[in-house]
């Protein structure tokens, strides 16, 4: 009896040892955080309180960051993913993109995330003619007016492979796609990221292809479908322009010379329709989507904090000056949509969530 117990105990120990070896090896596995390991913004607090209200997109939902607190707009993702919020000046409303599998539409939402109006109808019901669907992205409102700029994949022939974005403008209360502002280069992807400037001009990223490479240039359109003013060279490969509130500087993302594996965040003065020498604020990063604080006290942008590739919000104070502060990581363990530029309203809103 005693011998049987001893044998059983030894066998159990051996089995336990084998299991332990198995688990020991498993413990050496390098964990790569997936989407599920990312927090929702409302479960976190930013490191600093930024002025005004920022609208940001993560995982198909839109969040508001105001007074140091995130508020979830709780948008339904049953029809698609929400992205690219754009605040409507002097209101708590936003225009945002609802992206479905094969089309995207613009919606007007109030501060509680309720849909006030579907601004476009780009879905085509014929499943076998997917090319009759349309994309609209990058909405941006003009302060002091109801004018809206956005990128739209019109005009296109239904039988062509040429699907390129052009910049369009319209009004919230009137016709949305009223005026085609830019003429895109065919088979390049086209013109994206429009931002209004003083005097009715619009600045945007204009894509082109030359010498076998695709590149972007910062372009300014002063009249619809006129010849654009190109502010950067093909070699610089700069895009995602963000004019400062006083209109004296442009923040932009440049790729030239990086081997397409990283970017630079640069700021250049804008004077008499020309950019001055760019100042690199952040080098060798995956920086994206710079946006100036409405009071000009600095700018935010997205960049992963580590190799997991989850894009966090960063802040550079004094970016308008000659000696900006070093970048400060504002959020942790979030994963913002880097294809959704943040929108920054000067108004401070009261967080909905209880503190």
């Amino acid at each position, binding site marked *: 009896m005693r011998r049987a117990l001893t044998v059983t105990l030894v066998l159990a120990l051996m089995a336990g040892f084998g299991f332990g070896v198995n688990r020991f090896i498993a413990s*050496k*596995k390098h964990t790569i955080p997936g989407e599920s390991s990312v927090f929702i913004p409302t479960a976190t607090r930013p490191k600093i309180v930024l002025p005004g209200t920022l609208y940001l997109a993560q995982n198909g939902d839109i969040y508001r960051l105001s007074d140091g607190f995130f508020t979830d707009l709780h948008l339904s993702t049953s029809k698609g993913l929400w992205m690219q919020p754009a605040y409507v000046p002097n209101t708590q409303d936003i225009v945002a993109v609802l992206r479905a599998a094969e089309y*995207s539409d613009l919606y007007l939402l109030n501060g509680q995330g309720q849909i006030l109006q579907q601004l476009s109808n780009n879905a085509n019901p014929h499943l076998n003619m997917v090319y009759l669907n349309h994309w609209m992205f990058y909405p941006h409102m003009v302060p002091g007016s109801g004018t809206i700029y956005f990128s739209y994949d019109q005009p296109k022939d239904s039988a062509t492979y040429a699907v390129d974005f052009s910049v369009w403008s319209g009004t919230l209360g009137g016709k949305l796609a009223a005026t085609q502002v830019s003429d895109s280069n065919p088979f390049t992807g086209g013109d994206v990221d429009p931002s209004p400037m003083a005097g009715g001009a619009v600045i945007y990223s204009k894509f082109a292809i030359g010498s076998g490479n695709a590149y972007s240039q910062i372009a300014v359109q002063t009249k619809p479908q006129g010849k654009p003013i190109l502010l950067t060279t093909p070699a610089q490969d700069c895009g995602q322009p963000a004019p400062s509130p006083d209109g004296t500087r442009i923040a932009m993302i440049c*790729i030239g010379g990086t081997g397409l594996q990283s970017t630079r965040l640069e700021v250049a003065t804008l004077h008499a329709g020309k950019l001055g020498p760019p100042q690199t604020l952040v080098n060798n990063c995956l920086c994206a989507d710079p946006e100036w604080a409405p009071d000009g006290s600095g700018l935010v942008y997205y960049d992963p904090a580590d190799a997991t590739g989850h894009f966090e919000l960063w802040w550079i104070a004094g970016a308008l000056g000659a000696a900006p502060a070093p970048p400060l990581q504002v959020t942790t363990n979030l994963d913002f949509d880097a294809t959704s530029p943040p929108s920054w309203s000067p108004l401070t809103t009261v967080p909905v969530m209880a503190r």
Partner: protein
Amino acid sequence: MRHHHVRRTRIALGFLIAFGFVLSGAIGALAYFMPAIVTALQDTGHAIDRNLPTTTASASASPGSSPSASASAQPVEAPPGAPFTVLLLGSDNDAKFSGTVLTQSMILARVNPTTKVVVMESIPRDMWVPLSTGGMAKIDAAYEHGGASAAVATVEEDFDIHIDHYAWIGLLGLVNLINQVGGIDVVATNPVMDDFYPADLTGRDPYAYERVAVLPGPQHMNGMQALMYVRSRHGDLRSDFGRSQRQQQVLLALRAKAKLLGIANLPDIATAMGNDFSTDMTISEIASLLPIASNIQLQNVRQVILASPYTSTGERDNEDVLLPDWNLILPETHLYFPAV
């Protein structure tokens, strides 16, 4: 005498128990690595058949064929630490293309473990070349006619180089691999727009189309998004060349993620790849590549795309093809890939 017997019995028992523990530990480790072992047995060590019948005599007589096309050289294995060449193949492998698998991607990679320099040369899929199995066709058909061995032999003969190894990955394998490493970070070069992207992996009609719009700039992509980025070509002025550039870009992004992995991640990777991967390399050769990949700096990676003037558009057999200018291609290729 009895005392001696008892002592021997105890020693034997001790050895038996120790052996039991070692065996148990080995079984525990074996169970952990089982998916990787199964993959190693199924998908690796597929030797290149270098005795395929070739028809280079007729091929070299054809217009536009490689001036130096010759019988595939017998392999001379690169000694440890010496530079070696890998042909990376990517292709459809779903039911829609059952029996007619083409390679959508062919990338020659030259790796120098000593200098840690890597050169990647994309071969356009529409390049009109003599196939090792006979006749002229687009180079993407080489795989269809004789699998990896024919693809390797065709590239060896047409480019007059020696290929040490190949690695093939199917579309779903790429998607699953990228998902397994938690996605990749890519700086999308431009808006990638396509209204005629094949909807063959999304479970609807495999012959249907879907719309793709990859927005430009830095972003985190999951496997399916990355596949759209590297596979789409209709909306790009450069057609296949734009796609080739994006494929190289995604390979480099994957390399960045590979740095985060260790040997304990192999079973998960193997499970994710499933049957969508094959290579002639052994599992130990693959394992030896991991530290090399993680030590290569981006500035030491050279990318070659055979766009104009290396190739020009043309028509053969009622197909739009790319006609190679071998007088330009071979000297450029032999700068990085030694001529045989």
